[in-house]
């Protein structure tokens, strides 16, 4: 009698435990899915995105992207060259506030994700290596190549 009761209790416990595990898996999964980081949607039939595999650096420049080799470059490549070319970054010069405003604009209108801890790293990298230089109201022509005109 007691043995039968013990078996029933064990079965019931096992059953409840199974439900609990299933419950945790289901809601854990749902929670994880609802909070997943946004990911760029892969597009079939499209030329695969450029994979930067060559990390050669020459004269302080990362050859594959043209970025200045410095702390934060990897995070910048990973977060800033998915949608647009590195060239859109390297041809610009902005203050830290300017780069931050650009990141906010991309987050608000262009589907850029939350950069998390990398934001500080990226902002420091960009504002150090791509800072504005005073140009004045008009620069010199700086003609370096000359040719004979007949």
């Amino acid at each position, binding site marked *: 009698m007691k043995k039968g009761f013990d078996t029933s209790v064990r079965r019931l416990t096992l059953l409840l435990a199974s439900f609990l595990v299933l419950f945790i898996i289901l809601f854990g999964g749902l929670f994880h899915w609802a909070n997943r980081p946004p990911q760029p*949607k892969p597009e079939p039939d499209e030329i695969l995105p450029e994979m930067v595999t060559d990390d050669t650096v020459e004269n302080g420049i990362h050859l594959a992207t043209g970025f200045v080799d410095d702390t934060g470059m990897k995070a910048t490549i990973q977060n800033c060259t998915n949608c647009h070319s590195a060239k*859109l970054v390297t041809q610009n010069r*902005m203050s830290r506030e300017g780069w931050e405003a650009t990141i906010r604009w991309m987050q608000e209108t262009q589907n850029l994700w939350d950069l998390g801890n990398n934001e500080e790293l990226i902002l420091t990298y960009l504002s150090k290596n791509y800072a*504005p230089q005073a140009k004045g109201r*008009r620069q010199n*022509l700086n003609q370096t190549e000359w040719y004979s*005109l007949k």
Partner: protein
Amino acid sequence: MDRRQFVGKSALGVLAGTIGLDVVFSHKLPPGYVPLYLQDPDPYKLFKKDSEMVVLNDKPWNMEAQAHLLNDKITPNKYMFIRNNGKIPENIDASTWTLTIDGESATNKKTYSLQELKNKFKPYTYQLTLECGGNGRSEFDPPAKGNQWTVGAVSCANWTGVRLRDVLQDAGVQSDAVYIGYHAADTHLSGDPNKEPISRGVPLAKAMQDETLLAFQMNGKDIPLAHGFPLRLVCGGWPASASGKWINGISIRNQVHDGAKMGGSSYRVPCESVSPGTTVDDANMCIIESMPVKSLITSPKSGALIKEDQPLNINGHAWAGELQVAKVEYSIDFGSSWHVCHLEAAANRLAWQHFDAQIDFPKKGYYEIWAKATDQNGISQPMVLPGWNPKGYLNNACHRIAIKVV
């Protein structure tokens, strides 16, 4: 061994065959995979551009000319700048392409095939100046954000198509219409299918001008892919972003069009001028309409060495948005004195005008030739940068080239 056993298993194999390379095991490539040598295509070949054109950005594609490349009176494709906000559409089929006219102020929503547009409406050809609003951005201080155009984001090609006015009237324009906005087939850089990369427009008055075209030809041929094949809206004299490419819809609006790149700092400048570097509220930004007066010395190329007593012939183009250019002058003494150039009339309204002059230099030395155009209202190009604005638009400062008399 029969080569055909290896090649021809897949479309890629065939493609490889045509360029003389066999992709061994090409049949095992996963669908959608593009071999390395077909990735990162050469933009010069892809878009049939001259090797002296300058790539500013490869995702999205942005490319500009240099001043001396723009010497032709009618700009050929190989020297025409490319400006993209999004990704160029793929797999365009002109035979199934349609244009839909809709919007709050359209009497009827109407859809036309390309053939219907060509059959139903009379074609017109105009030579039209298209200049990127941000041409010259690279000179602003503090620097302005975006592609750093120098002088080469301008072109003046022949465009052939039907008048937008005729098509709008066929669909019916209600009395409350004030603006049109375009929709196009290019895709957003983020890959988000619900986002338009750019959807700009013009006030109804500009849309109704004779020269505002829904063009299907450029310089007598199908429009090149990078320039909007198979249908492009062409609004000469305005920022070229108003001339939408790959057009598949025009909305007749009862308000200022509110598509992508119509608000914020996009193609807008402070309504009241600001000191350099000022942060300007969106509410105080105004949409750029007609482009300002400007000119470009296209010959000789900057950097010419000439002999003493050798007269120098210069020539170039001048344009002034909606207006005519009344005068072009040159200076060889840094703006201290100016001399009038010979100036031709435009081929038609909104086309650039050609100027030329012969210059005698007084003695050996380094010179800069500056060109300054004046529009029909007496407004001239500034010699230094014009008013600073957050996105660096409308730089129409005098063009300069360097010359040495040796």
